[in-house]
């Protein structure tokens, strides 16, 4: 007897609800199914919310009513089923998911009544449903509700034409372009369904499951077929080498592989359940259109051959099957397993076919088509013999003495065939260049043994065989791990292939980077020899990098990098005694042709800028090493020039370097922008080292002539990107800053977002402002702000905010004043030119930093939130509120309330939870009534938005 809830209470309850949070709370807390009827009568169970679409994305609002129904399904399944059958879900997958959950809680015979609805819902592509539907199939199958289970299973397995990002491919007649058919639900869900749920269905109705899977597999192959291709073959022997499980089958073979396995399993289970159905199932498979089914049929015969020997004979003596290469594997398995038990007549038939040899018509046609020639008789005979040999290999256990002799003769001539039962055989996957020696083997060798190996070893031709590149990598590893040993005998590598020399140098460089000491002289001697090798003479003419270095250019670049590293001021740097040797190498490499004008023209279109090209080209790296050499000389000047009375150090002290650096600044000598960028890279150090030299060559580094603009940009962009702003830099490069600022605003939004030169320039200018090198009235700051795009202004404000946030310790008062003045004057919050929301939002960082005056920050944030509703770094801003709530309780709550109000994404209060709770907790215990009241209001408001965890704060009260 169904109980009834007091109608008065129902009315009271309904009238006490007005907000969506209350609706949710009400339905989520109902524990009895007795509410269903009265709520239904009052119209509360009939309006599932419709999906919400925004910016091309679709969302499914959860519905507390369907959640309630799902919870009640176990307690009163009939009542829930009645409502669910009438309910319109409005295409809301979230509601549909709840109703499937309800079905899962019902007895299968009741759940079966929802199967048609579930099957229909599965025709939409939404993710919430498949795994539940799959579970429902199991639930129904376990309850012997086969019809209902199959209705859903059919939709779970449905295939549809493949989709491609290029729609033209979808109807393509090119089989390689045509996208693979796909499952309607996500493939992962299909895989899980086949693995976890389909067996339940197969258990109660294997034959029916087999029919369904065969149908789906046929549809898949049909969809794969290219329209208008009359002789379409499924080429399953390639994508599914073996129907039975086999290591050759792909690990992740996709939907088709899954369908083949499932069809096979279902067929086997169907015959297990009804042994008499063997022939019927085999016939059914053979009647289907594609080869894959004939292969499954052969596999099934193989599995159940013992129970129907005649069927085995029929298959083995079918010439069409024997001759069809696409059936080779399954036929070979069948014949290997059963040949010994066959009658002499059957065996003779097969041997007779082998003796006859293959039909070579196709082979002859192919040679004619591809090579435009006719194969000669010897070639055809070889072909026949090898084919025979493959069959003898398959039947080797059964061969008569005579045939065994034939086998031995042929195998002596052609070698033993590998895997003759497969049309194609895959031996592994690519793992990168391989070495003929392991690192351990190299370590165990003496240097002489190693050099002997390098001298005598030649890589074989072939795919994935050990290569010079692979051996080189191993050498780099071993050298970097034991640099002392190898550097002491580095000279022994003189005369070797550039791949090995470069690899050893890479190893030395890595060791030096890691702070290890080297025997520098032998290493540099090896470098000198390598650098002197003819650069343009190709060592090998190949595009295959596995073969090894094509020329000496790569080794030269690594030499320059090694010198750059070794000359750095550190404990194990190159000793002063090797000055002449070091320079002779740099000098040599600095004349390398790379980068050429052509290569720079090509790379100009790539994202790599001149600075990046400078460290990835031989001459560029050599120029970097040259500058490094200059500073190494200064560092070691006491030892290099012990008798010098002049304490000042400038380029005149090293005329060889001065001459080289000046020469490469002359366009007639060096046209590379990458090289020019090297001067920008080193500009500040050079200003400090030799101001006079810089003054006299500044125009060469930054040419102002219009036609030389790319050179100016190469140097300037490197300065703003890699050289830290400094007063000295500003003083010397004032003109360049001016030129750059005049052109600001021309960069695309993408470049600004990628922090291109304009963004870096803005960072320089703001750093000068921060430090007091420029004031707000300066042209630089004013021009920057007047010309900057919105994106650049946002970037600048964010960078300042982040810098504030990341600054440790207290800021000086004058810096605080300057930054506050900057915000007040350049980011207007009133008047006709009020700043854009995105600019205002950047204040989140400023506030979160806690570095500015608290009262000022609070007032600004209040204004910003009024105008922009949201701020960047909101979680850090709330963290800051938590730290000031004791001193500014009322303001903290008010600002938090504004942030909650502005949070449209709906995750802010979750993200801020810990600190927001801290703010509210403090405010709720504040002696000021208004503060407490505001905090309480906010907690209730948070609850009304669904953040129920904040309710704990009131309970604590």
């Amino acid at each position, binding site marked *: 007897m169904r109980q009834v809830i007091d109608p008065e209470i129902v009315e009271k309850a309904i009238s006490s609800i007005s907000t969506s*949070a209350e609706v949710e709370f009400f339905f989520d807390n109902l524990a009895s199914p007795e509410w269903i009827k009265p709520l239904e009568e009052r119209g509360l169970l009939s309006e599932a919310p419709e999906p919400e679409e925004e910016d091309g994305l679709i969302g499914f609002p959860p519905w507390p009513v369907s959640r309630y129904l799902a919870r009640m399904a176990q307690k009163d399944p009939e009542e829930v089923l009645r409502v669910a059958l009438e309910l319109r879900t409005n295409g809301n997958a979230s509601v549909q998911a709840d109703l499937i959950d309800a079905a899962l809680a019902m007895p299968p015979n009741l759940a079966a009544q929802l199967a048609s609805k579930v099957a229909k819902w599965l025709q939409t592509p939404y993710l919430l449903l498949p795994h539940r539907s799959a579970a429902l199939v199991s639930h129904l199958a376990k309850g012997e509700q086969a019809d209902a289970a199959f209705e859903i299973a059919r939709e779970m397995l449905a295939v549809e034409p493949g989709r491609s990002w290029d729609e033209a491919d979808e109807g393509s007649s090119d089989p390689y372009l045509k996208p693979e058919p796909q499952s309607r639900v996500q493939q992962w869900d299909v895989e899980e369904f086949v693995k976890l749920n389909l067996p339940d269905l197969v258990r109660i109705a294997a034959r029916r499951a087999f029919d369904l899977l065969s149908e789906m597999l046929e549809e898949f192959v049909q969809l794969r077929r290219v329209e208008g291709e009359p002789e379409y073959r499924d080429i399953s022997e390639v994508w599914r080498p073996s129907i039975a499980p086999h290591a050759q089958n792909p690990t992740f073979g996709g939907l088709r592989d899954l369908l083949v396995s499932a069809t096979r399993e279902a067929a086997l289970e169907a015959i297990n359940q009804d042994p008499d159905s063997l022939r019927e199932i085999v016939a059914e498979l053979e009647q289907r259109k594609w080869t894959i089914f004939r292969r499954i049929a052969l596999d099934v015969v193989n599995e159940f051959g013992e129970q129907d020997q005649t069927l085995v004979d029929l298959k083995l003596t079918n010439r069409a099957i024997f001759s069809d290469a696409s059936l080779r594997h399954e036929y070979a398995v069948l014949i290997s397993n059963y040949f010994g038990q066959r009658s002499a007549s059957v065996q003779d038939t097969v041997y007779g076919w082998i003796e006859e040899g293959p039909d070579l018509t196709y082979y002859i046609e192919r040679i004619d088509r591809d090579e435009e020639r006719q194969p000669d008789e010897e070639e055809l005979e070889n072909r026949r013999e090898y084919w025979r040999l493959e069959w003898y290999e398959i039947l080797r256990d059964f061969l008569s003495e005579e045939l065994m002799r034939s086998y031995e003769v042929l195998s002596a001539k052609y070698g033993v065939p590998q895997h003759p039962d497969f049309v194609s055989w895959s031996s592994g996957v690519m793992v990168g260049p391989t070495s003929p020696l392991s690192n351990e083997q190299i370590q165990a060798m003496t240097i002489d043994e190693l050099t002997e190996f390098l001298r005598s070893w030649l890589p074989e031709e072939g795919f994935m065989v050990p290569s010079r590149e692979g051996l080189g990598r191993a050498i780099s590893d071993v050298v970097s791990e034991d640099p002392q040993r190898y550097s002491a005998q580095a000279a022994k590598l003189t005369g070797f292939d550039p791949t090995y020399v470069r690899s050893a140098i890479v190893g030395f460089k890595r060791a030096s980077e890691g702070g290890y000491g080297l025997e520098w002289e032998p290493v540099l001697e090896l470098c000198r020899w390598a650098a002197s090798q003819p650069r343009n003479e190709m060592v090998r003419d190949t595009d295959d990098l596995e073969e090894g270095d094509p020329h000496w250019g790569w080794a030269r670049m690594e030499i320059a990098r090694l010198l750059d590293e070794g000359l750095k001021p550190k404990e194990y740097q190159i000793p002063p005694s090797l000055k002449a040797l070091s320079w002779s190498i740099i000098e040599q490499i600095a004349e390398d042709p790379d980068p050429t004008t052509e290569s720079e023209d090509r790379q100009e279109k790539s994202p790599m800028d001149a600075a990046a090209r400078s460290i990835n080209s031989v001459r560029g790296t050599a120029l970097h090493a040259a500058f490094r050499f200059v500073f190494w000389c200064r560092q070691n000047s006491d030892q290099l020039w012990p008798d010098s009375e002049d304490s000042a150090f400038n380029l005149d002290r090293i005329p060889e370097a001065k001459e080289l650096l000046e020469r490469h600044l002359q366009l007639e000598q060096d046209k590379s922008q990458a090289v020019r960028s090297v001067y920008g890279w080193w500009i500040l150090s050079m200003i400090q080292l030799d101001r006079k030299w810089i003054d006299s060559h500044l125009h060469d580094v930054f040419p102002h002539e219009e036609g030389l603009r790319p050179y100016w940009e190469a140097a300037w962009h490197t300065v703003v990107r890699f050289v830290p702003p400094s007063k000295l830099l500003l003083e010397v490069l004032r003109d360049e800053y001016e030129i750059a600022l005049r052109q600001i605003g021309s960069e695309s939004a993408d470049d600004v977002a990628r922090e291109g030169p304009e963004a870096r320039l803005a960072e320089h200018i703001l750093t000068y402002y921060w430090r007091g090198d420029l004031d707000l009235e300066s042209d630089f700051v004013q021009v920057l702000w007047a010309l900057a795009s919105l994106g650049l202004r946002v970037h600048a404000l964010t960078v300042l905010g982040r810098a504030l946030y990341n600054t440790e310790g207290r800021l000086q008062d004058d810096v605080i004043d300057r930054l506050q003045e900057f915000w007040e004057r350049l980011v207007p919050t009133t008047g006709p030119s009020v700043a854009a929301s995105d600019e205002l939002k950047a204040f989140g960082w400023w506030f979160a930093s806690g570095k500015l005056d608290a009262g000022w920050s609070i007032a600004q944030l209040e204004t910003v939130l009024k105008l922009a509703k949201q701020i960047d770094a909101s979680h850090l801003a709330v963290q800051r509120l938590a730290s000031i709530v004791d001193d500014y309780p009322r303001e903290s709550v008010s600002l938090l309330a504004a942030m909650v109000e502005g949070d449209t994404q709906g995750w802010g209060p979750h993200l801020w939870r810990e600190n927001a709770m801290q703010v509210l907790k403090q405010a709720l215990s504040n002696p000021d009534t208004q503060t407490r009241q505001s905090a309480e209001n906010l907690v209730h408001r948070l609850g009304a938005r669904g953040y129920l965890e904040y309710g704990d704060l009131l309970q604590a009260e």
Partner: protein
Amino acid sequence: MSADPGVDPRGTISEVLEVAPHQEALMNELFDRRTDLGNIYLGALFVLSNASNHDRHALAAHNLRELMDRLMAHIGVDTRAWTDQMAGRLEPLVTAWTQASENSSAHTGPDDWSGAIDNHLRKFLHKAEKFFAWLNENRIARRVSVRQTLENLDPGRKQVPEAIRAPGIKAWMKYHKYFVGVAHHHGFAPSEFDSNLHDLEHYLLNRLRPRTFQEFEEIRKLIEQGEASD
């Protein structure tokens, strides 16, 4: 009292006006949202507190109606259906009626219409058709805008079953109609006015400043009662 909508006079109110706690809460909520909303409500309370002003109810009702309209606009609801006044729409109909009754041959005497539809009568019928179509649309549009108002005032911004939303819409329309009537000096009883004001204040306060967790407790108790009787 300054009429400047930009000034927030809350600090000095307690010295000159006695307000109930719920009124103070509503006032604060309105001032926090926008000063003019707070001032309009406060204006109504001030007028009502002046017993010597015999037109105080009509004046206060005018403010309360204005408060409802502005609140709607403040939360982003299209209020054209409320500002498109009936009087302006009715005027052409009245003119056409006068002309038809004076000139139509079908108007054969006082309260007597018979015969064919002539141009005068046709004109009136066209105007009448348009007017009623507008009236119908306007009623729907007003209801839609009230629904939107309640949705926008709901911090959760999720759909609420019509059975729950409808009484809220009905109540809003009822208060609005009531205060428009009083503002236009239609008859009313002071106690009825006080009751409507009190209900409107709570209605707005519950939505502007929800007491979510208290409401949850109430709901929980009702569920327990319902299931206990089950």
